[in-house]
């Protein structure tokens, strides 16, 4: 299988380094502005939920981070597979850069979910399928990061962790559906589902906007981390020498 032509530009480390640096401030700025708008819309403009009152507003920080936690893993596994198949350094660097961000947002989704659970379910923790899968996802992220850290050679760390990411992506849906199936056997539906018929446009648009803003935020941080990962992998190449000299003045 040949690498698609448009991907070639992204396989060149100096090119990616340059364009990541140029894009980062714009992405970060835009994501923060959109987040401010989304939070305003969610906290002030959206009406209180008829069942959960103002407690439902936690949705505006919980759902976007839960979404990122899985989307980032999917991206990480895709980048890992590309790195393994086409031996592309930049793809491995993307996976390495994405993992810590994904772990942070998984932790955030767990914490906000637990706090939300207290007023809604009367308990911080419930062994329900989504919470359990999210917890396992966090462990898989942590295992991935630890495996990376355990190798002295970056090339080996890249390949070993890429295989772990690929095996993990097969396993994650299995884990998710096993927990659903497993908890459905002998547990009554103790959890009050969040679905409410009176959901309005004013509630929905901030949420969609925030999911978009979080994605931009992730992209920005990914690019910033990607630059460090690329430098690490290209430390002996000439262009890195030029970059280092260009930033030699103390900033």
């Amino acid at each position, binding site marked *: 299988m040949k690498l698609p032509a448009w991907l070639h530009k992204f396989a060149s480390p100096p090119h990616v380094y340059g364009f990541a640096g140029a894009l980062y401030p714009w992405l970060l700025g835009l994501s923060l502005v959109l987040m401010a708008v989304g939070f305003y819309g969610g906290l002030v403009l959206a009406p209180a939920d008829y069942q959960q009152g103002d407690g439902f507003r936690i949705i505006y920080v919980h759902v976007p981070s839960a979404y990122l936690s899985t989307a980032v893993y999917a991206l990480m596994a895709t980048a890992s597979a590309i790195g393994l198949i086409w031996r592309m350094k930049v793809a491995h660097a993307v996976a390495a850069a994405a993992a810590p961000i994904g772990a942070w947002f998984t932790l955030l989704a767990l914490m906000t979910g637990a706090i939300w659970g207290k007023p809604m379910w009367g308990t911080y923790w419930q062994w329900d399928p989504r919470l359990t899968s999210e917890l396992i996802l966090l462990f898989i992220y942590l295992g991935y990061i*630890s495996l990376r850290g355990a190798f002295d050679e970056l090339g080996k760390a890249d390949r*070993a962790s890429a295989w772990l990411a690929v*095996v993990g992506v097969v396993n994650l849906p299995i*884990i998710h559906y096993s927990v659903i199936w497993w908890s459905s056997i002998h547990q009554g539906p103790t959890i009050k589902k969040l679905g409410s018929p009176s959901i309005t446009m004013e509630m929905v648009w901030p949420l969609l906007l925030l999911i978009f803003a979080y994605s931009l935020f992730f992209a920005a941080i990914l690019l910033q981390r990607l630059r460090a990962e690329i430098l690490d992998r290209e430390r002996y190449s000439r262009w890195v020498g030029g970059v280092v000299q260009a930033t030699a003045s103390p900033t």
Partner: protein
Amino acid sequence: MIRVLWAQIQRDLRVAYRRAGDVASPLMFFALVTSLVPLAIAPSRTVLQNLGPGILWIGALLAMLLSLNALFRQDLDDGSMEQLAIGQHPLPALMLAKSIAHWLVAGVPLVLLAPVLAVTYHLSAPTVSALMITLLLGTPTLSLLGSFGAALTAGVRQSGGLLALLVLPLCLPVLMFGARATALAGLGESIAGPLYLLAALLALALTLLPLATAAAIRISLD
């Protein structure tokens, strides 16, 4: 092909036989951990009957994990893994043989010891047989997953804790279905559903994981 598999299994079993102490320690660990639990919590009959399936399954899982650390260590140290990798036989098949040998050495004794320990938990006869069947179907998957984890961490110093962190989340479905089916048998219900799922997991692991294990062990070779 089958001959190559069989030769590799025989070789690994012979090596295991010569270091019988290493083989026995996970077994003793299994017996010890599962006998500590009744002493740590109230040894009442109903409590033990409720907790028994889960505890025995967790004990088996941890015992399997304990035996994984040394899985590739010797072969890597004495260079025989390198011989296998550059040899004419496909490495995934040899890795499959290694996983099977690991299961024969570490998994099968656990299956045989489990009913003895189950008696101390006052488990009923159908529960004990369900425990043995689920262990029989589940432990090969654990061996295959564990081989993959051991291959990933083969080139790493101090891999024990890391191996657990990598492998345990992946083992979760096997643990859940195994323990759940055993508990269901205790309630007198059909365990066919979880058994099919355990078998499906085993089939999936048998086909895919040897490939990943072979790729992972190659990393530690160069």
